[in-house]
Structures are given as C-alpha cells and as structure tokens.
C-alpha cells in the first residue's frame, strides 16, 4: 500500500485477443482511497479491459502499471498479492463454508504445498468482521443470500491483502436492500484507503459511490473524470444510444437531485 505511484495506471492500452482487437488508446489512473466506476453498454469491452488489468490476458500494446511497477513480467502470484478480483456472485460450486471460500483468498500468500495456518484464519476472520458478516463464517456458501455471497467474495478478495480491488458488477442480481448494503461496504473500504475499480450497469449506483466515472464505448475510454461532471444526461444518452430526455425521464431522482445540488452550490 505504500508503493509509490498510482495504485493502477493504464497507459495507451490496447486490449483484445490474438486476431481480435477489442479496444485501444485506453489510459486511466486510480489512486488509493478512490473509487473509479466504469460505465459502458454490453459489448463495450469492460470484461476484456478487466481481464487485461488483472493480467489474465496480455495487453496487445501499451502498459499496465500497478503501484508504479510495470506488470508485463509479473507472475500470477504477484498480481494476486496486489489486486483482489471480485467476480459476480455465483452459486455453481461445491458446498464450501464461507470461511473456506474466504481462505481461498490467501492462496497467493501461502506456500505452494501448504494449507492455511492459524494466522491465515485470523486474516479471514478479520476480513469477514470488517464487512460485518462474521456470523456467516460457518455457514455454507451455496446457502446464503445473494448479497451475503457478494460480501463473502469481497471478503475473499480482502484476504489477498491487496491495494486494489476490481469488482465486476458488484450489485448485479441483488435486491434493493442488498444493493445498498454492498455499496455502503464498498464506500467504507474506500475510506479505509483501498483503491477500487468497479463496473456497473446502473448509473445511479456509479453516482452514489464513485469519485470518478469513466465511460467505455466500443473499446474506447472517454470522459474519465469527476462523477458529477461525467455522468450527465447527455453523455449517458450518448453512451447507451438513447435520447437525453429519455435518460432524464428514466432517472428523475438522479438529475433532479443534482440540479438542486448544483443550485445549492452556486448560491
């Protein structure tokens, strides 16, 4: 966490697969204690960008720096120690307990042939504690609610002791209450100094938690900046190929609220 430089920096990145360029010219930075939210329609290249930033696929051109270090030669373990990845909550798994799931986050911190030690269990317990789900430790992961599963996966990522969290639609398929609970925990992690990159399909969530928002369309990153400046009705309309009035009508609370806020600030 005390590494110099940006927690995450992408420089003129080209992403994609051999023979298929998905996006290019992508540059972004993320600092400790900051939430950057990526908005983009389906097929805009969000998943490919995430895979590239996580080192799961190589960048076609450009560079990903983590903590100021170029990552081209990083091993899987080095990535896992610096970046915690939180996938969308899923169910298709064997009935591991929540503690066992969280302990899997220790993988990059323990020897290749070792099993988790008492200290690893302490770390796992602390991660569960910090997310307010210590009571779920003995429960079976496949039997808890979707919101609890999402929090358990965040706890697993925290058990990696990363400086950066990358979250893939953390509020997808959650009910209203769980969405708000998960978002509150994400903000809490930010306040504790974690750098957080997430994507969502819900602009109101982005505005609720993000410090900065970046818009990704057709593999190009546009309008990366302070949340309120980027997520305007006009730009969201551009992003999702909608009419600005439709956006305003669909998210009335969002823009009414903002008008009041801007008015308040100018007074």
């Amino acid at each position, binding site marked *: 966490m005390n590494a110099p430089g940006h927690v995450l920096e992408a420089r003129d990145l080209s992403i994609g697969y051999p023979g298929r360029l998905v996006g290019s010219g992508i540059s972004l930075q993320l600092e400790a204690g900051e939430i950057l939210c990526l908005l983009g329609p389906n097929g805009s290249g969000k998943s490919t960008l995430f895979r590239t930033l996580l080192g799961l696929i190589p960048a076609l051109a450009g560079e990903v720096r983590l903590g100021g270090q170029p990552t081209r030669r990083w091993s899987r373990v080095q990535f896992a120690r610096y970046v915690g990845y939180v996938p969308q909550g899923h169910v298709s798994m*064997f009935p*591991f*307990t929540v503690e066992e799931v969280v302990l899997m*986050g220790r993988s990059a911190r323990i020897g290749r042939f070792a*099993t988790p030690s008492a200290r690893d269990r302490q770390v796992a317990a602390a991660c569960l504690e910090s997310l307010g789900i210590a009571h779920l430790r003995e429960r079976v992961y496949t039997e808890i609610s979707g919101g609890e599963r999402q929090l358990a996966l965040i706890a697993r990522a925290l058990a*990696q002791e990363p400086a950066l969290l990358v979250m893939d639609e953390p509020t997808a398929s959650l009910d209203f209450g769980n969405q708000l609970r998960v978002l509150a925990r994400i903000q809490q992690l930010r306040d504790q100094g974690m750098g957080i990159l997430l994507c969502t399909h819900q602009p109101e969530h982005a505005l609720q938690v993000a410090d900065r928002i970046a818009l990704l369309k057709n593999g190009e990153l546009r309008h990366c900046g302070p949340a309120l400046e980027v997520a305007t009705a006009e730009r969201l309309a551009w992003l999702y190929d909608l009419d600005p009035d439709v956006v305003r009508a669909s998210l009335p609370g969002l823009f009414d609220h903002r008008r009041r806020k801007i008015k308040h600030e100018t007074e």
Partner: protein
Amino acid sequence: MVERSAVAASRSGPALLAGPWIWPLLLALLLIAGAIALLAGKFPIGPQDLLRSLLARLGLATPPAPAVDTVLWQLRLPRILAALLVGAALAAAGAAYQNMFRNPLVSPDILGVSAGAGLGAVLGIFLALPMAMVQGLAFAGGLVAVGAVYAIAGMVRRHDPVLVLVLAGVALGTLLGAGISLLKILADPYTQLPTITFWLLGGLNAITLTDLGYAAPLILLGLLPMVLLRWRINLLSLSDEESAALGLHVGRTRLLLIVAATLMTASAVSFTGIIGWVGLVIPHVARLLVGPGFSRLLPASLLLGASFLLLTDTLARTVASIELPLGVLTALVGAPFFLYLLARGGKTA
C-alpha cells in the same frame, strides 16, 4: 415436512457428520471390512483361528493348522490388499476429477479413462505382450482418452463446458468401446478372448503380490501431487478466471492433477480390469460426510473407497457358488446411485 427437513440437513454439507470422530469411525469401518474379508469364504475360518494365527506370528501362541495360515495370508490377504489399494485409488482419483472439473457427477469412467485404459490393455492382450507392456498400454490409453476429452471440451466454447465434457466423454467412451469390440472379434476365441472378457468385467481374483508390487508405487506416485496440492486443488472448483486471479497457475495445476488421477486410475485398472462407479459414488458420499474441502475429502475418499471395494469384493466371492465379477457388483450399486444424484441435482439447481 419431516422429509423436507431431512433433505435440508443433508444439504447443509459439511455440518452433516463433520466431527473429528468421523476419522475413527471410518478407520473402524475399514478394520471391520478387513476382518470380515479375512473370515469370509469357502474355507471355514473362525475368529479364534484368526486370533491364534495372529498371536502365533508374534510367538504368543501355537500356530493353527497350516491350511488356515495358507488361506489367510497367502490367498485372502493379497486379495484384501488389492481391494484396499484399488478402491482407495479409484475413489481418490474420482474425488480429484470431480473437484477439478467442478462437477460432482464426473468420474474416471465418464471422462473415458477407464475405456481408454481398457482399449490399451485389450490391445496389449491381443498382441500377446508381456504384463508390463499391457499395463503401459492401459496407462497410455487412459491418458490419451482423458486428454482427448479435455481437448474437445476446450475447443467447444459455445456450450456449457460441463455438458460438453460429459458428452465428449460419453462419445469417446463409445468409440473406444467399438475398438474393444473389434479386437474381441479378432482375438483368438480360446486363448485371448476369455482373458479379455474377464479383464473387461473387472475382478481381483487374478491379482498377486507381485502385481501389487508394481501397482502400489504407481498409485502412490499419483497420490503424491494430490496430497501436496490438497488445499490448492479447492481453487480449481472456481472458474478458471477466478482461480487465476487468486494466484493459481490453473492450466499447470490442472494438468498435473489430471496426469496424477489418470496414473492412479490406469495403474489400478490395468491390473484389475474395469471396475466402474467407485470413483463416482465414493467421493460423493465422502463429501456428504466431511464437506468439499479436499484435505478432508481425500482421506475420507481413500478410506471409504478401500472399505467399499473390500466389502464388495468379499460379497463377489462369497455370495454365490461361482464368483461374481466385481465390476458387475459395483455397477449394481453405482448406477442407481448415479441416477439418484441426477434427480437430486436437478432439484437443487
């Protein structure tokens, strides 16, 4: 109402029987199975004979009749050791396969290891090769079969990968079965065909201590990566992307474990013939008892698999006037259980 709560209890996975006392229980089961196997059979031997023979070995009693000693230690013991070894190997391999293919319904049989090993061994018998070559061919056949299934599933990315794995395994198994049938027709009906038929039905009656001396090191070699990776293998039950993001070299780890599980299956099967279903059913029961964590699942599968095959084999040689093929008995238990799992899995999904 009662039924529903029973189902709920059985689904709460690790909580079912996961006390530390499960281990003495499993060991006791193994010892009881061993004692039954030593005492059961056409030649009548009572518990007092067994006790006396054991004490005589320690110089504490006069030995029983020589025939008793011979039956106990030269006929029944090798076969018991074989059952323990093969049962443990098949169950451990099945547990590893299920974890790394993220599917509790996968087994060495379904991925074509057994069929591949079968074709290799039948080819070896057909070519009248020495035993070591037959075993080598069986191993190679098993490895090639599971490698092919895995490669096919890797190429087909549009469908559910688990479905593709199972379907590819079934298709390849049928193809290999056709090869076996062809060789059976071509084989000499008086010398080779009985050997082949007997081999394909599976059984422990022909196994000797020398055979065990060959098989045991190979099986232990296959067991070694599983023991060393007993915790890390759990990560393979996540999606590849997730486990890679957690720092695992997914491809390398899975390949090592596939080779290990295939080595265990193929070296067991090459001596005993095809004994199906152990690798599917036992890990599942073990998972219900101790949960999915592999460092508990592996020893539980080893112990349960050994006990199960020993009891089944004892049944096979005592229940009728002729010896029943072991593979037939394990199928009689395994196939209905598989159908039960399918029905139950459909409900939980």
